[in-house]
C-alpha cells in the first residue's frame, strides 16, 4: 500500500477516525474541540463525522477528567483532551487518586479503558505555565500507562493501541511536533504499547530518548558520526510499560548510555532509566549513564532564555562525549 507523508496532527486525526468508526463507545471530551477542530487542529474533520461524540465542555478540568473516568467505568471508551499538558495540575486528584487507583482498590471489579491525551513540551515561547513535560509524575503513579511518541506513524499507531487498551493511558504529544511530517502507510496498523524502536543503529553509545528530543538526538548523532562516534538511538515511545529488554540489548553492545529528555533533569524520568540501567547492567557499563534534560528553572518566556534552558543538540553531543570519556 501507499505510504504518505503525514503530519502528527493528521496522523492523529486518522487514528481517531479509524477507531471511532470501528467502536461506537469511543468519544472525545474537552474544551474547544469542535469549532476549530482542537487548538492544534488535531481533531479537524472529526466533529462533522461524529457530531455527538466530540463534546465541547465548560472550562472544568476536574469534571472533564472525572467524566472520562466515570464514562470508562460504565461501558464507554473516552478520550480526554487535556488542552495543554500543564493543566493536568488542575485534575491530578481525578488522575492519580481516582483513574489510577479505582480498578486496583476495588479489587479488579472495573476497568478503565480511557486515554488522557495531553499536548506537552516547550519551544513555542509559551512560558512557565504552558511549556512543561511532566511524564515522570505519571510513571511514578501505579495504575497509569504513559506514551510519548515522536514520529507521525507512531502517533497514529500508538494512539490506536492506547484507545484499544483496557487501562488508562496518558498520551503526551509534543506541541512542537504537530506539524512534523513523516511517512505513514495507508495500511491499517497499530503500534503496541511497551515496544521501543531503534531509530539509528550504532556501536559506540546508546542514546535513550523520546518525543521531540528524538529529532535532536538524530541531529546530534550526525554530528557525532562526523567525529567518529556511532550512536545508537532508541526512541522509547512508551515509558510505562517500558521496553527494558531493547534497552539492555543495545547497551550490551555499546556499553555506554545517555538519556535525553526535555523534562527537567532533576527528578525526571532520566533518573529512573539511569538507575535501572546501573542496577541491571552495571558490569557491562564502560562509563556513567549521562542524563541530558532541561535546567532546573521554570520555562522562561524570552526565546534566548528558553533555548538556554532546553537541551540542545550540542548538549547531547557533549553528554555523549562525557559518557564515553572523550
Amino acid at each position, binding site marked *: 500500500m501507499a505510504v504518505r507523508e503525514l503530519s502528527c496532527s493528521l496522523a492523529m486525526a486518522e487514528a481517531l477516525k479509524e477507531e471511532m468508526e470501528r467502536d461506537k*463507545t469511543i*468519544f472525545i*471530551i474537552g474544551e474547544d474541540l469542535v469549532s476549530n477542530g482542537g487548538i492544534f487542529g488535531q481533531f479537524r474533520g472529526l466533529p462533522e463525522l461524529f457530531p*455527538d*461524540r466530540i*463534546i465541547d*465542555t*465548560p472550562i*472544568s*478540568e*476536574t*469534571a*472533564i*477528567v*472525572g*467524566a*472520562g*473516568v*466515570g*464514562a*470508562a*467505568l*460504565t*461501558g*464507554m471508551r*473516552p478520550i480526554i483532551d487535556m488542552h495543554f499538558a500543564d493543566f493536568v495540575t488542575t*485534575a491530578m*486528584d*481525578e488522575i492519580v*487518586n*481516582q483513574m489510577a487507583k*479505582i*480498578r*486496583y*482498590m*476495588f*479489587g*479488579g*471489579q*472495573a*476497568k478503565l*479503558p480511557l486515554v488522557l491525551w495531553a499536548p506537552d513540551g516547550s519551544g513555542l515561547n509559551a512560558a512557565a505555565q504552558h511549556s512543561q513535560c511532566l511524564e515522570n509524575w505519571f510513571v511514578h503513579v*501505579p*495504575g497509569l*500507562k504513559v506514551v510519548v511518541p515522536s514520529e507521525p506513524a507512531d502517533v497514529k499507531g500508538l494512539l490506536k493501541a492506547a484507545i484499544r*487498551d*483496557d*487501562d488508562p493511558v496518558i498520551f503526551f504529544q509534543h506541541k512542537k511536533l504537530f506539524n512534523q511530517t513523516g511517512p505513514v502507510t495507508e495500511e491499517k496498523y497499530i503500534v503496541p504499547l511497551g515496544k521501543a524502536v531503534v531509530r539509528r543503529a550504532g556501536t559506540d553509545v546508546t542514546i535513550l530518548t523520546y518525543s521531540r528530543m528524538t529529532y535532536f538526538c538524530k541531529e546530534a548523532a550526525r554530528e557525532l558520526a562526523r567525529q567518529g562516534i556511532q550512536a545508537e538511538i532508541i526512541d522509547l515511545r512508551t515509558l510505562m*510499560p517500558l521496553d527494558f529488554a531493547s534497552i539492555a540489548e543495545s547497551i550490551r553492545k555499546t556499553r555506554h548510555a545517555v538519556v535525553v529528555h526535555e523534562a527537567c533533569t532533576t527528578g525526571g524520568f532520566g533518573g529512573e532509566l539511569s538507575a535501572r540501567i546501573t542496577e541491571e547492567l552495571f558490569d557491562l557499563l564502560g562509563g556513567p549513564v549521562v542524563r541530558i534534560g532541561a535546567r532546573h528553572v521554570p520555562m522562561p518566556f524570552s526565546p534566548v532564555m528558553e533555548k538556554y534552558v532546553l537541551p540542545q543538540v550540542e548538549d547531547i553531543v557533549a553528554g555523549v562525549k562525557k559518557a564515553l570519556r572523550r
Partner: protein
Amino acid sequence: MKISNLEKKALLRKMVEIRLFEEKIGLLFQQQLIPGFVHLSIGQEASTVGSCSALRTDDYIISTHRGHAHILAKGAEPKYMFAECFGKVTGYCKGKGGSMHIADFSKGILGANGVVGGGFPIMTGAGFSIKLRGTDQVGMVFFGDGASNRGTFHEAVNMAAVFKLPIVFVCENNRYASTSPAEKMVAGGSVANRAHAYGIPGVINDGSNVLAVRDSVAEAVERARRGYGPSIIENETYRYKGHFEGDRQRYRTPDEIQQYRLTRDPIDRFETLLIDEGVATQKEIDAMKTAVAAEIEDAVRFAMDSPLPDPHEAMQGLFVNP
C-alpha cells in the same frame, strides 16, 4: 411516590440493617478487629434509605468515606462488606479497598471514595455514558455538607446542568464536616440554595423522615430519567457517632447528640408511624430486628472465618493488560 405496606416494611428493615451493621462495625473496630479508619453514619439512615429506594438496580451511585449505608441501601451484601472491612480476600475488593473503598459494580455501586468530593466529577462521566448509550439510567452521587465546598461540586453540577445529565446530587447534611459546622462553612445558608446558581431544582428535606426523602428524591430521579437534567437534594440529618471512630468530638456537646436521638431518630420515628398506621405491630418489628441481627451475626462470622489474602496478591489486578 406511591408506596405499599410491604415496601414500607422493607424501608424499615433496610434502616435497621444499616443501623445494626454500623453498630457492629463500631464494636469490631473498638475490639481492634478492623484496621484503618472507620466512619459511621448512624442517625442518617432515613436519608440514605429513602434516597436509594427511589433507584433501580441498574442505576448508579457513588458514595463517600462514610459509605457503608449507601452501599447497603443500594443492595450490597453485608457479609462481603464485613469481609472487606476486615481486609479479607472474600471482601468486595479482595481486601484491597477496606471500609472507605467498597464497590459492587454488579449493583451499580461505583464505589465509596476516600477523597471528599471525589465522586462528583466521576458521576458526570456516568451521566455522559448514559446519554451516549441511550439508556434511561440515573446516577446518584452522595456527598456531605463539607464536600459541597469543593470545586469539584461546582464543576460537576454546572457540567450536569449544561448537558442535562441524568444525575441526582444528594447532600447528606449532617451539620458537620469533621470538626467544622456547616452553618459556618457553607456560605449562602444551604447546599440546596446553590442549585439556583445553576438553574436546577434544589430541595431541602427532613432527612430523618424516610418517606419524605423518598418522595422528594423520586421526583428528582424521575426528572433525570426523563431527560430534564440534574437536581440537588439536601437531606438535613445528623450523625450520632464521631466523624471517625475515636473522634474526641470537642466541637459539639453530648447533649446535642442526645436531643437528636430522642426527638429525630429516623428509625424510631418510622417505627412509630408504621405502628400508628397499622402497617406493622411492635411484635412484628421486634421479630424483624431479631432476624436482621442474626443475619448480621452470620455475616460477621463469614468475614471472620474468611482467609486473609496471600501477601503476593497485592501484585495482582493493577492492569487489565499488564
